[in-house]
């Protein structure tokens, strides 16, 4: 069994795969260790049948019961995907508003080759130049709370440096969308494939976004949301599209792996091409890395459990940790727990795990006039940057902005309609439906059964339209990942403990953005008597507000130019190690105003260029 490689990467998602792709193509020997299984798209699978299925019970499966001692929600039901961890085996625990600990399904991306890029909706936005310089942007502003300004950070690399890596990621991963009307510069031009036709229900979102731009005075218009779904034959990955590319629209999208491999997971876009091309690349699925050891400044061994649970190790000249922010930080902390020297090197300044971030997110939902076949859709059709401009932020007294886009595939299929009825997070699926009462547009409530069930279907089926925002979250040092003092996983290793709160300025921002999302719907369709506005809001309220992460798990090992203020240097190398890099979302000093995957991938291509100078 081979144990020595130029590069060992832990995790096969957005943070690790771009590096594997680049270094393998350059002739380096690369090994990826991945905890999850390798599930292939149909064109690679035996019998041409993928392990990913279009089956509504695969994304949020049958009921399981939480059975973990020491958490307040022991006995609760949960419903997870076939590639999410079993919560009883490997929980994430968060501290709730009553200071009691609870396990949550939030914050896990996916345990499968490709990681979160298998299950994501594929929204592939760039961050804006302002997103990367929020300290400078807020310096001297009197309208922003002191602590928000004080904690804000600029990224150590400007947008101009990241731009060409964005372009490269868009090319190699395979993204469709439109560039016009985005406020982000595209210094090397347009790298998108053409989008598919939008779902007709999105016309209201488009009209509303156009009207909102006018109302705000910027006249910024919407664009087609960049999505990681190929719509044309894609040479870098060897993927070809069906005769009619529109058949990619199925609404079995968000939280489903794509059996056809048209969705651009890192497996189909970045890893399987280097397997096909015969480079010195190996991936070991079903192998969980348990600890790193070091010899001075060098990480000398990566220990993992093979599929049988037998401990093995490999050695890499360079080691990249990229198994999603929470798990990466946990792995570094567990390694430190076994070695004071490792701990001192990775966390000498006490910052590891701190400044953990997700996003401020939320939105608005309405029943729109008419009825549409939502079962033929991708995750989002239109997006607008009209709430990400410097002028907007100053006018609203906000420290940072975000993107707004409409969701198209939500509640498109029957079971997803029922289980997400009245629910906005993964911890509360089915609850409102099981409760059985339907609040009608006319203000009365009917039991949701028999005739009442028909009423509910008539009102809601094919009529729901939601508009979401994804915006920067304020930096707070105490928002952090720790090792839980008592709860352990099935291997006896301490699990990750998520401790975070929403800053008052986050709440203000979410209120502003939720209202703008509401405005999109009101301006887009509000004059029609059959329009019914269901509500708007940010995710800071509700029982599970402190668990909410949108599976955007960022920060905790931020990069920077000052070793006293960051965990990683500008090349994502841990300051006091010579060969240890962290390249998943953990490196982000701020969370950005959009879904993070495209930026994680772009940055990993940047780091890959640096790594090539070292092996």
């Amino acid at each position, binding site marked *: 069994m081979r144990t020595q490689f130029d590069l060992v990467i832990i995790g096969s998602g957005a943070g690790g795969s771009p590096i594997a792709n680049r270094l393998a193509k350059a002739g380096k020997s690369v090994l990826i260790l991945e905890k999850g299984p390798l599930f292939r798209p*149909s064109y690679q699978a035996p019998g*041409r049948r993928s392990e990913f299925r*279009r089956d509504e019970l695969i994304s949020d499966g049958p009921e399981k019961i939480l059975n973990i001692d020491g958490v307040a929600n022991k006995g609760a039901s949960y419903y997870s995907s076939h590639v999410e961890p079993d919560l009883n085996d490997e929980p994430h625990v968060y501290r709730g508003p009553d200071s009691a600990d609870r396990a949550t399904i939030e914050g896990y991306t996916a345990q499968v080759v490709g990681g979160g890029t298998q299950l994501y909706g594929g929204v592939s936005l760039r961050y804006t130049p302002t997103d990367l310089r929020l300290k400078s942007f807020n310096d001297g502003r009197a309208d922003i709370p002191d602590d928000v300004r004080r904690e804000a950070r600029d990224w150590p690399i400007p947008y101009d440096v990241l731009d060409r890596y964005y372009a490269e990621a868009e090319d190699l991963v395979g993204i469709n969308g439109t560039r016009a009307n985005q406020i982000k510069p595209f210094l090397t031009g347009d790298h998108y494939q053409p989008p598919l036709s939008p779902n007709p229900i999105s016309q209201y979102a488009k009209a509303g976004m156009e009207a909102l731009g006018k109302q705000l005075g910027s006249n910024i218009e919407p664009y087609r949301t960049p999505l990681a779904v190929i719509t044309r034959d894609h040479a870098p990955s060897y993927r070809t599209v069906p005769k009619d590319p529109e058949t990619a629209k199925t609404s079995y999208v968000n939280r489903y792996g794509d059996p056809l491999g048209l969705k651009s997971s890192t497996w189909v876009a970045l890893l399987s091409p280097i397997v096909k091309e015969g480079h010195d690349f190996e991936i070991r699925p079903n192998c969980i890395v348990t600890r790193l050891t070091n010899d001075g400044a060098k990480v000398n061994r990566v220990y993992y459990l093979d*599929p049988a649970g037998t401990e093995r190790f490999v050695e890499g000249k360079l080691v990249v940790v990229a198994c999603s922010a929470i798990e990466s930080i946990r792995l570094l902390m567990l390694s430190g727990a076994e070695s004071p020297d490792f701990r001192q090197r990775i966390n000498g300044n006490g910052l590891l795990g701190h400044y953990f971030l997700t996003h401020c997110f939320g939105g608005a939902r309405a029943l729109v006039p008419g*009825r549409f076949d939502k079962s033929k859709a991708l995750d989002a059709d239109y997006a607008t940057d009209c709430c990400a401009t410097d002028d907007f932020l100053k006018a609203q007294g906000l420290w940072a902005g975000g993107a707004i886009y409409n969701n198209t595939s939500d509640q498109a299929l029957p079971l997803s309609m029922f289980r997400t009825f009245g629910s906005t997070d993964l911890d509360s699926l089915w609850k409102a439906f099981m409760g059985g009462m339907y609040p009608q547009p006319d203000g009365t409530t009917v039991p949701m059964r028999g005739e009442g069930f028909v009423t509910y279907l008539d009102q809601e089926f094919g009529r729901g339209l939601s508009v979401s925002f994804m915006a920067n979250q304020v930096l707070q040092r105490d928002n952090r990942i720790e090792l839980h003092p008592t709860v352990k996983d*099935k291997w006896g290793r301490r699990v990750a403990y998520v401790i975070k709160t929403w800053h008052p300025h986050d709440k203000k921002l979410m209120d502003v953005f939720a209202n703008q999302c509401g405005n999109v719907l009101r301006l887009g369709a509000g004059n029609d008597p059959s329009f019914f506005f269901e509500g708007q809001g940010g995710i800071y309220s509700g029982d599970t507000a402190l668990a909410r992460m949108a599976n955007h798990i960022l920060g905790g090992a931020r990069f920077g130019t000052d070793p006293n203020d960051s965990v990683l240097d500008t090349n994502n190398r841990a300051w006091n190690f010579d060969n240890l890099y962290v390249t998943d979302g953990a490196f982000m000093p701020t969370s950005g105003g959009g879904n993070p995957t495209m930026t994680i991938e772009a940055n990993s291509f940047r780091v890959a260029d640096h790594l090539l100078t070292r092996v």
Partner: protein
Amino acid sequence: MPVRIVEKDDQDFLNLCTKYLSRAGDPSASAEAWRFPVIDVFRGSPLDPNDPDNEVVFIYKAAPGTTTQVGVLGSFATLYQTVPLKPVRFLGEDTGYFGLSVAVPKGQAHIYQYVVDGKLTLDPINPQRVVLENGKTWSRFFTDSYLQPMVLELWELKLLYRLTEQILPFRVAEAELFLQQFYNYLDRQDKDASKVYRLDESVGEVNAIDKLLAREERHRLSDYHVCLKQIDTVLRKRNSSMEPSELSKEFFNDLYNDMAQDAANPANRIDGWDYGAYANPPFFLYILRRHAVTGAFAHPKYAGNVGAAGWAYLSEKYFEVKDGQRSTLFDWRAALEKPLGTNEDYL
């Protein structure tokens, strides 16, 4: 019958089982034990366009180096003929896992045991077991779209049909008419009408619940046994002259309303319900609501939504007319595999 083995490589077996079986401690411990043996889509070749088979993937787990031979003996193959599982290796090293994939027709249930180093052994992972008339216990599995009752008795199934029709939309006149036409159409299409198992004009949701309770949600089976017993008692008390499942719709409507009341309030107590046996009737309705719609609208492989009747109801009900042409607003067939759907690329 001769066994049809579907070739799989070591990686394929590990992809199916590592997450659930690999752990510290007891080698027979697992997560989601109901997943074993794995009832999967058929991946052999050629693929029959009618897609009649599942693959059933047997996985046996031992500590590495402790077991030399594992076979499986079962009613899916010629009885008394042990089919060997192959040792699964990881990069040339022993994993302790043994695997075998065989093609088994959909709609069947089978019993089996492992033969581990010569010794008959029940599947230590799969909790589904049956006791035969000779008193011997065997492990059991069933494939997709299995239409016979499995864990609920006939009187329980009949009562459940009456309860789920209180929840689902199919008893509204318009829906009843649709389902009659739909089943007439299916019967004409498919001479083998036994495939459409139904006690009533439903979409088979109760059959799906029976399967869910037999496998994925076994932990809810006792809720059903206990509550259906209470319901039977209450209804007999309310009308002693008829079988409870034969009572009019009004009895079930009243019962549903009574059960939905907050049980903590003594004024809401249902006469005849044993609160010592089941304290919280609303909780049973809470589970039943999720199960009823899951059975009615999940993929037909789960043995409800028979002939995709639940989906057809929605796709007939919601349509638009453009330029004189009627087109559905729930075109579910376009995304799905043949023969159920019409997608050319998704198998």
